[in-house]
Each structure stands twice: as C-alpha cells, then as structure tokens.
C-alpha cells in the first residue's frame, strides 16, 4: 500500500464495524460524478424535435437507412466518457399519443418495428471528442409500396444528459442498423 492510500475517508455499513472491511463508502474508489463547473456544461436539459422527416423508398429486399446528428457537444474528457441520457416525449404525431409524457434512457424508440414503415429512433453516443444525439431510420423489407415518410420532427422531446467523470463501458449504440 502506498503512502497515498493511507489518506481518505470511509464509512462502514450501519451496525457494522470498520474492521470487517466491507465498507459502503471508501474515498479511494471512483464514484459517478459530474463536473458542473465546466464549459460547455456536462449536465444539460435540451429541447429538440426528432429531426428530418426522412423519406425513404421501401425496397423489395434490402432496407434503406438514414442517419443524422441532431446535437453534438465537445465533452473535453481524456477518454470517451460514460453518460446518462433520458429522453422525455412532449409531443408526437398522430397515432403515437401513448408516448406523450413517457421517457426512455439513452435510446428513444419513435417507430419500433412498424410493419408498413420500419424503425426510427433517437440515441445518445460518445466518441473521443464529442457527445452526440443522433436520429436514425430504416425501412422494412417486403413492403415495397413506394416511399415512406418517417416521423422526424413530429416528435418533440426534452432530454436531460449528464456526462460522467469516468470512461464509458458502453459508448452508445445505433439500435437500428
């Protein structure tokens, strides 16, 4: 044990003695934290719509896809950081009324396996430099009835994200393709 390790603060579980070594808090160990005194802020609430109303041809065999970045912010961390992102739906196109007032974390399903349209989602992701909110869509196969228009900006969302102080295990993932 290094000299450094001898300093800190620790707490045992209630009614437990420190000597049992199973502590609920040990200041030597990393915790989830957010630096709230940096620019740009790493804890934000952002209001946005669902982006472009993609018009994609419904092909007979191979799905067509589209993706765009709706928001990006430099995170200024020395690694791709862990994050939490909660999408809260405030308004929707017809047929989606059950989604209003509900939320999902890190991925928001806008159209999920819609048999005549396909799939569409917002998702959060990070790389070495930035935190992103992206919008993706993919057509279904075998319903080649001409082009289809996705919901895009008909969805209104309020999202809250926080960029944590430790390296991401999960970088975020396009849930569609």
């Amino acid at each position, binding site marked *: 044990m290094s000299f*450094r*390790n001898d*300093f*800190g*603060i620790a*707490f045992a579980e*209630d009614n437990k003695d420190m000597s049992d070594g*199973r*502590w*609920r*808090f*040990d*200041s*030597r*160990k*990393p*915790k*989830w*934290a*957010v*630096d*709230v*005194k*940096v620019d740009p802020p*790493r*804890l*934000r*609430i952002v209001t946005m719509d669902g982006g472009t109303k993609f018009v994609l041809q419904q092909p007979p065999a191979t799905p067509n896809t589209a993706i765009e970045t709706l928001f990006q912010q430099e995170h*200024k*961390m*020395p690694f791709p950081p862990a994050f*939490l992102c*909660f999408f*809260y739906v405030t308004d929707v196109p017809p047929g989606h009324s*059950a*989604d209003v*007032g*509900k*939320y*999902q*974390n*890190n*991925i928001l*399903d806008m159209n*999920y*396996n819609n048999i005549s349209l396909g799939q569409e989602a917002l998702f959060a992701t990070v790389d070495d430099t930035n935190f992103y909110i992206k919008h993706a869509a993919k057509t279904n196969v075998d319903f080649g009835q001409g082009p289809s228009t996705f919901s895009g900006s008909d969805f209104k969302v309020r999202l*809250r994200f*926080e960029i*944590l*102080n*430790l*390296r991401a*295990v*999960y*970088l*975020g*993932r396009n*849930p569609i393709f």
Partner: protein
Amino acid sequence: MDTGAVFAQDGVDVRNAADYQRVLDSRWRFMEVEYDVSFNIGLPAVAGVATVADRYFEKTLVYTHALGKIPFFETDAVSSIGTLQQLDFGFWSSTVGIYADADTVFLRRLISTGGAVAETISGRLRVYNLPILEAYAAPKTFIQSGSSPEANTGIQFLEESGGVSLGDASSIGFSIDTRKKILSVHRHGQVTLSDSLTPPAGVTDAIFHDVGYPPTFLLAQTNIVDPLAVDYDPLIYIGPNMNYIPAKISSDTSYLHFKGIQASFGGTFGYIILKDPVELQQ
C-alpha cells in the same frame, strides 16, 4: 444514526441541501467502483453433442470479484466472430452471455449439437460496490434546496489511482469534490414486473421509489429463464440492456411505471434508483 458527515455542492447551503445536491452523506451508498478491468478471453472450438437433449452450458471465468454478494456491474463486449448479439435484451435465447454470481463474473456459452467455433471475447468490465439484488433504501431528507455564495472552500478526496493532486481543477481523479455533483443511490433491490392486464399476484408494472420526484434509474434483468434449467440462479446480466429498456417509462413522485414497446414488458430485474432527478438541471 445521529452522527455522520454531510457535504453539499459548492454554492448550496449544506443545512438546506436537497439530497441530490449532497456530494457525501455518510448514511448513503454511492455509485462506487470496486473493479474496472479489461478482459480478452479465448474460447476454444468445442465438438457438438449427440442430441439436443445433451446440451450444456460451458462456464468461463472473466473476473473474480470476491465480494460475497451479487454486485451491480456493467460490461460491453465483442466477439472475434462478430458483435455479441446476445448482449441485446434477447440474451436468454442466445449462445454466449456475461453473468455474475456472488464471487465471479463469467462467460456462459451454450454447447449444442452444432458445437462451437473458437472465438475471442474482449471488452471492459466495471464492478460496483453495490449488492444490487438486496433491498436497500437510503434515508432521505427531501428538503428544498437553498443556496449560498460559491466559495473557495470545500473538500476533495483523491481516488487511489487518480493521477491528480489536491487543489487541481481536473474533472477526474477525485472521489469526492464539492465542486462536482456526486450521484448517490436512493434505493436498490430486485422486483418482478409485468405490464399485463392480468399480472400474477403480487406483480405490478411499477417500481416503488418514494424519492419525491421522477428519478434517474438503472435496470438489469436477473433470474434468467434458463431453457436448460441449469441452476446458476440468481444470476444477473447487465450490459447494453442497462442502456436500453424496451419499455416506455412514466413516473410520479413514488413509482416508475413500465409499458412494453410493441410486446409486453416483464421479468425479474435488479434496479438502482438514483437520487438524481430526471428533470432538473442542477
């Protein structure tokens, strides 16, 4: 317990600090990282069994955490023969998964009539000092936040391998820092959910939280429905499903409600409710 320590974020009067503005409260658990490791595990080719009835699971150690409790963990991994599709929510029907028991985190691979090809599984594993399946509720104060002038005073504690010094303005390397927001745990435990109109007795579509506002949370499926009835129960699986839940969530001051997307949503889950509000920018 009448004694302990409380520190609030800089600019918040500690006497009136809301729970989510406390960077340390000695009564609480925090999202404390016990181990953070990378792994790279070679799995050999295995010959198939004679009949489907002879199927079995091969178990390979990823890491020995020796916590004596099933911990909250997160992982993401790739296979040399492609992305681990089983790390999606449908993992129970797949061939390889990552699980934890009271002492280890391990890979489990299904060996059936087709056998298995050699592959390498690599990724990152983070194990937390949180026995997620145990019922835990932190004391709460739930008072409205006050404020005080930001000051040049406060506390910092160094992580063991943080690579920073006291007084640094670094975003990383401090386990406690009154200039930062430190996320604490309000509740954790295990719950069986179903959004069915006729759920089994004692099962609901909701997790009780009583934090007083819609909170942030994490969810991980446990008690896997094992087609082979191999008894690793209780198991916990946490991977990308921690980051994607196939349900729309609504919340009030006391409950999180889950409604499946397209299909019904249900199962047994480990959960962590954080004191961090899902609506506030603080």
